[in-house]
């Protein structure tokens, strides 16, 4: 039987990474849950990894045999509005039912609340698997990760009240965007006022473009400080659908991810609870929420990269023209090999990022119970910084790669790719949003640029080079790093902010490609049978791109901007 996990050994490879030992050790805290008698808790490292494998197998099974077969019908039907409530497509309900019965909720939560205590690495694997079967359903399923923010910043009472409900399969949404507050969330206007009589907060206003907006439990960004105009007047609230007060006014008609309902919500005196401290909503909590969500989109993207590659490959193997299968033509296998290289390198970047997130978050969690040792504190700081630096590159690059792979899958299909009966067109439509929501690629560049200019990434590259054993590919990456260093220095020396901003994207692309080259070289060393070809192809792509971009950057001056300005 088809299984999205076992059919792609490239995923399981990332469970074998040397850092997994430390990661599991921190996550399982000396296997204390098993000692407390929780019968599904692991007893040692091997047992933990075995649990991960088993859960991924269940996910792969459900994805291949239920969610994927439902995906076309979900795409055609989509959700609809009924008496101010959102109603999922009928097969989406089936997907929810099956994933609940499989127990795939509360994935990241501690076992004491009924969760599975899985790290981001495994959550990301489940995400990419579900996304490969239906990207729109992945949105609904993976929004459960909003509970991480409630766990981190909510009170113990709120944890006990809400986390078990998420573990049982209730859904979530994060209500941030408003008509006038998109990328610029400081402009959020939804009003939160304290109701002295009922001793609770009340929300009034409108939210727009809310994914899964009619969910059971919402995290809401609202203005609690009257008279303020910026991010410092915003707080985070929990709205429980059981209390009522929020209606769905409209469901958007979108280009893709049709199964994922995008809602416009009206809040009419909706009862809500404050989550964490007042005024920290945007500054602290939404930042945490967004980082988690960005990793989720990176995983969603990798799923579609894989599925687009699979579609392209299957068609190229089957379709014959001019007396041979089209996969034999260089123009076609060039496309396929680049798709696979982007997929393998992008996936490697995703899991490197997820490991960094896990390592620092596990230490942060331990810190809630006891003081960290100085070594542990240093470790946490290092990984926290790396997670911050890697999240915008993992999200940005993979979201672009997903669209590129879907585009190439259609090219390989020729005219058939343009026909609605083939899956490639859906992947193409679905992928387009990945580089837009949770921060456009342009905003990922903004998030990454300070790590470019302050040399964080360069240091990462140097460290990776030092750890990589000598090989031909490594010696080819070395001069690219030198070129990169010169290009960064050139931009840093330019004393025009506009030049900085203008060239940032090119520096960002170079950064990502060099780091991904080093990752895939290491993967190929550990598993040549899986990654050797991709490593060769990816390094060649990086040579082509870094040289061109470096040339572009080094020959750019402030005066050139005039030709580019649209107005």
């Amino acid at each position: 039987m088809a299984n999205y996990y076992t059919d792609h050994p490239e995923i399981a490879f990332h469970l074998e990474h040397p850092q997994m030992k430390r990661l599991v050790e921190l996550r399982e805290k000396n296997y204390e849950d098993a000692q407390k008698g929780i019968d599904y808790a692991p007893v040692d490292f091997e047992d933990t990894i075995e649990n991960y494998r088993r859960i991924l197998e269940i996910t792969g099974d459900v994805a291949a045999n239920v969610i994927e077969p439902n995906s076309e019908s979900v795409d055609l039907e989509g959700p609809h509005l009924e008496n101010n409530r959102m109603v999922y497509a009928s097969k989406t309900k089936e997907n929810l039912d099956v994933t609940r019965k499989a127990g795939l909720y509360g994935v990241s939560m501690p076992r004491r609340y009924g969760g599975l205590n899985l790290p981001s690495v495994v959550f990301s694997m489940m995400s990419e698997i579900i996304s490969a079967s239906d990207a729109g359903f992945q949105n609904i399923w993976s929004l459960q990760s909003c509970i991480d923010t409630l766990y981190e910043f909510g009170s113990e009472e709120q944890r006990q009240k809400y986390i078990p409900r998420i573990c049982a399969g209730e859904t979530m949404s994060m209500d941030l965007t408003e008509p006038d507050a998109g990328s610029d969330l400081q402009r959020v206007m939804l009003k939160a006022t304290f109701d002295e009589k009922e001793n609770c907060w009340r929300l009034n206003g409108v939210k727009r473009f809310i994914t899964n907006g009619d969910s059971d439990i919402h995290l809401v960004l609202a203005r609690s400080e009257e008279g303020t105009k910026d991010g410092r007047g915003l707080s985070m609230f929990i709205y429980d659908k059981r209390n009522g007060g929020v209606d769905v006014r409209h469901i958007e008609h979108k280009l893709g991810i049709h199964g994922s309902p995008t809602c416009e919500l009206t809040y009419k005196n909706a009862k809500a609870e404050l989550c964490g401290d007042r005024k920290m909503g945007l500054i602290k909590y939404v930042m945490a929420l967004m980082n988690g969500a960005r990793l989720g989109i990176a995983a969603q993207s990798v799923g579609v990269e894989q599925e687009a590659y699979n579609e392209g490959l299957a068609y190229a193997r089957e379709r014959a023209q001019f007396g041979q299968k089209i996969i034999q033509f260089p123009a076609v296998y060039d496309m396929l090999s680049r798709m696979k290289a982007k997929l393998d390198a992008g996936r490697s970047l995703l899991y490197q990022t997820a490991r960094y997130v896990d390592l620092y978050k596990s230490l942060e969690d331990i810190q809630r119970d006891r003081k960290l040792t100085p070594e542990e504190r240093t470790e946490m700081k290092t990984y926290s910084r790396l997670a911050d630096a890697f999240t915008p590159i993992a999200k940005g690059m993979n979201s672009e790669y997903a669209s590129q792979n879907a585009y190439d899958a259609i090219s390989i299909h020729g005219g058939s790719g343009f026909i609605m009966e083939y899956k490639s067109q859906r992947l193409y439509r679905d992928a387009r949003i990945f580089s837009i929501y949770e921060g456009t690629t342009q905003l990922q560049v903004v998030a990454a640029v300070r790590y470019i200019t302050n040399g964080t990434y360069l240091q990462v590259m140097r460290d990776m080079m030092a750890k990589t054993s000598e090989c031909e590919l490594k010696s080819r990456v070395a001069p690219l790093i030198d070129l990169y260093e010169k290009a960064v220095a050139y931009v840093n020396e330019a004393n025009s902010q506009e030049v900085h901003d203008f060239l940032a994207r090119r520096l960002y692309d170079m950064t990502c490609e060099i780091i991904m080259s080093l990752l895939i070289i290491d993967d190929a060393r550990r598993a040549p049978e899986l990654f050797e070809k991709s490593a060769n192809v990816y390094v060649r792509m990086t040579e082509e791109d870094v040289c061109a971009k470096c040339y572009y950057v080094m020959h750019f001056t402030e005066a050139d901007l005039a030709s580019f300005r649209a107005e």
Partner: protein
Amino acid sequence: MSLKIVVLAKQVPDTRNVGKDAMTAEGTVNRAALPAIFNPEDLNALEQALRIKEQNPGTTVGLLTMGPPRAGEIIREGLYRGADTGWLLTDRLFAGADTLATSYALATAIKKIGNVDLVIGGRQAIDGDTAQVGPQVAQKLGLNQVTYAEEILKVENGKATIRRMIDGGVEVVEAPLPLVVTVNGSAAECRPQNAKLVMKYKYAACPLEVAEDDSRKGLRAERQYLNLTQWSVADVDGDPSQCGMSGSPTKVKEVQSIAFQAKESKTLTAKDEDINGLIQELLNDKIIG
């Protein structure tokens, strides 16, 4: 009401996706080349049992299977989906059983389990396709039976209400407990394995499996639910002469390996004589009638 349910399940070679190695040169099933799976209609049966459990608190669902030690996997798969327990009938004396000897062994085990309210099995297994075992178990236990069930709608006041498939439609019947039900493949699909249950039971094994691999010995000593029940002929007080080969009157006389070959096509017009001719031909070949 709380009920005691036994689900009959069989480990079978996956004959649905056969490759060129599916048959041996002698014309028998090449079990080594085909993955061993949970018989599909037995999964439909398990789902019905689990639904009754959800509707009737206190109900227990146990899987009964007969096979080699590796058939312990059937019990684990049941536990992963929400069953409470299981019994593996394994003994060289059980080997080579036809449907009669199989139903004798299962009926004997059900007696041993005792006080069973409902026995639910799949209509038939995909290796033998006989559909005889369920009804024979009912006969041997002297119980009522409902076959071709699509849904057990409810179990109340000692009676089960069941929708079953009949030629050209469905009918709803009521039958008193204890009862044997065989479930059709058109019934609801079985729920998936559950993450927590898989983590909990993944090292569950019967003694003969542990004899092969005892890597989690300590854990099994600590967690009793990881030790699956394994019964021999003697354990269920069975009569060896009615078990396995010696209890199987079925003898294979001859096995023919049939290769389908495309023949010439025949064109028929809409004239009455052509249509009558075709019907006559199909009747003569016993394809219809």
